[in-house]
């Protein structure tokens, strides 16, 4: 058992932290966020140059064969800087999915394009009625000649409006909420019949609703076995949860630092508010919640390669515990910042919003807690 980072991982950590320090502060983030894509093309390019965009891919596809712990290290640093680049959407979710289930040809085509920064991806899976249930898919893929015609409504696809390609789930069999019968497809964002409505998210990122109006797809666009897309999606989402957990820890570390700093400087009743015992103990509690979340992020990274049942159970638990920590740390950070915490001008609110949105992403605390509790072992 070992909880330390390797020397390479320490170096990776420093690299990403330096990138964040050099390229990010709250004003520049506002600017990146206001771009049509919702992020900085230049930062994306730099991330490609640093090898981050191929980190988890096999070397033959331009990657570095990075582990889940490597991803954790990167995401924690991105969280700490509050980065808006679509690393999660493109590299972790879609890249990871292709790496896991794509054909040789698909991997050769797409993974190296992701790694080089040429191409971005979004996962268009969730649907309006589905809430967080991954099997709740109603979009249809009707056989049409050699290929398929896709129809349906996908919602809140992260960075779906700037993605070059989409990975879309649709039913080739079964009824809504059946585990079987879901198939995954590679769809070019500019394909005929794909209608993308992009919008900003509350935390300054981007998402899109995607309506598929009879989109024609050839057979080679199928990812993974026909009708067996659900376990692929589940693995991809669990990798994303692991990444989010690490990001959340980076966010919380920064929140704690900002709050401590504020508590030292903000004077009320003739002394710094950090001198009040109630404020001190609250910050101590925030710190403890963050340490517990850090442990969960580490568990996530170390259990992502387990078999499906064990992995799903652990990751559900990670996300549930994380949600609890994030809620407490986020809410209390605003409370301790008082009125200043309510302003868009201060940095703290932006971290708070990201943390709040992480709980809305890939299953909220309740959803994940239920999944965890339902598989309670001895």
């Amino acid at each position: 058992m070992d909880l330390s980072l390797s020397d390479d991982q320490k170096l990776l950590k420093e690299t990403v932290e330096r990138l964040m320090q050099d390229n990010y502060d709250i004003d520049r983030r506002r600017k990146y966020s206001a771009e049509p894509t919702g992020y900085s093309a230049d930062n994306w390019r730099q991330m490609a140059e640093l090898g981050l965009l191929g980190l988890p891919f096999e070397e033959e596809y331009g990657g570095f064969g990075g582990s889940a712990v490597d991803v954790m290290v990167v995401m924690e640093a991105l969280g700490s800087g509050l980065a808006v680049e679509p690393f999660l959407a493109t590299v972790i979710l879609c890249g990871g999915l292709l790496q896991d289930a794509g054909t040789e040809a698909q991997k050769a085509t797409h993974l190296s394009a992701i790694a080089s920064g040429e191409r971005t991806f979004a996962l268009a899976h969730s649907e309006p009625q589905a809430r967080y249930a991954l099997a709740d898919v109603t979009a249809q893929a009707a056989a049409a000649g050699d290929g398929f015609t896709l129809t349906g409504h996908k919602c809140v696809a992260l960075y779906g409006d700037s993605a070059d390609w989409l990975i879309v789930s649709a039913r080739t069999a079964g009824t809504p909420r059946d585990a079987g019968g879901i198939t995954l497809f590679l769809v070019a964002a500019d394909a005929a019949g794909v209608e993308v409505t992009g919008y900003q998210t509350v935390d300054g990122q981007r998402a899109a609703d995607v309506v598929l109006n009879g989109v024609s797809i050839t057979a080679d666009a199928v990812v993974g076995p026909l009708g067996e897309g659900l376990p692929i999606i589940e693995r991809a989402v669990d990798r994303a949860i692991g990444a989010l957990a690490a990001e959340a820890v980076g966010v919380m570390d920064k929140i704690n630092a900002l709050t401590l700093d504020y508590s030292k400087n903000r004077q009320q009743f003739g002394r710094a508010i950090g001198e009040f015992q109630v404020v001190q103990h609250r910050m101590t509690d925030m710190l403890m919640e963050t340490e517990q979340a850090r442990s969960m992020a580490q568990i996530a990274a170390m259990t992502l390669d387990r078999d499906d049942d064990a992995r799903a159970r652990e990751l559900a638990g990670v996300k549930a515990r994380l949600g609890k920590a994030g809620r407490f740390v986020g809410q209390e950070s605003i409370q301790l910042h008082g009125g200043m915490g309510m302003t868009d001008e201060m940095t703290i609110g932006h971290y708070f919003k990201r943390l709040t949105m992480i709980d809305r992403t890939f299953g909220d605390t309740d959803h994940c807690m239920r999944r965890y509790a339902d598989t309670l072992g001895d």
Partner: protein
Amino acid sequence: MDLNLNSEDLAFRDEVRAFLKDKLDPKVAEKVARSEAISKDEILAWQKALYEQGWIVPNWPVEHGGTGWSVMQRYIFDEECAAAGAPQTISFGFSMIGPVLIAFGSEDQKARYLPRIRSSEDWWCQGFSEPGSGSDLASLRTRAERDGDEWVINGQKTWTTLAQHADMMFCLCRTDPDAKPQRGISMFVFSMNTPGITVRPIRTIDGGTEVNDVFLDNVRVPADALVGEENKGWSYAKYLLSNERFGIARVPQSKYQLKQLKNIAGIQLSEGAPLIEDRDFRTKIADVELELKALEITNLRVMLDVRQDGTPNPLSSMLKIKGSEVQQRISELLMEALGPYGLAYQPHANDDTANTPVVGPEFGAMLTPKYLNNRKISIYGGTNEIQRNIMTKAVLGL
């Protein structure tokens, strides 16, 4: 002890309901239901209806236009207005400066300002908080210095709600820098059109701009802008805040929001069934409903306990604390009910003229911003930490 309304109260309730049915614009009520922004014109229309009915300042003495209602009638009125989805009236004139002027203002001030408050001709804003003076209000630094027949005011106010719409401000300024902090403060009332006043909106984390910085740069106001006596402003401010206590628990508003939550949880799906049938979510609704039920009785107990000496019930701070917890919790559950669509930021839902449709359920566009905005409830008017400090003294006697 009896939870039932007596026959007079029932009759009064029916009268209020009839009035609401008749005068409340259903379109405005719809907007309230969706937590969308209510425009100044819409608020004015509603305040005008109340004014014409003679119900705009129930809390004022009858001779100044008050209604003479009992505590229970006021409570019923608030309850019915909230339940019908009536917009909030703007309290700065009606509940804040109005009663202060009635109690401490000159005859001239009363004659000049009170009718215009009642008729909504003047909108007021509150100049209390300053960048360095939040919880510790008495440390405020905005100065007012006497210069002949005028006062010259310099400083900065912040968190000034709706200052962009206000005609008048009531403002605490330091008039004796050498006295103890609380002893050297005076209260002034003056027009927002006075030269030297600059209003700058503050964008809040929900994307809204309801609050402002107000810069006061050599603002010259006449001698009669002073309310009551010089250097007595702190006690007027305390009187003002104690008057605010009546509805501070915001029980009627929370009951309304809880109903919205149940509606929405009945529409939203989870695993193909209404979310409200999910036991975890049901239990969370039940939990906050019980908190609110208890708070409703606690609130009534405090309000019906009218003290002979007019001092505020020391449990008032509890109403603020528990009221804020309930409001924040309900708006958190509303955001949760929305699921993944809670991520979408769609401020155009507030804009009647926008022609971009919202994504996700139409009742949902403002729920996350509302949650974010509601974080302020445990901060403004004295943070919950300050309220606990107050209770430590007032209730525990420590």
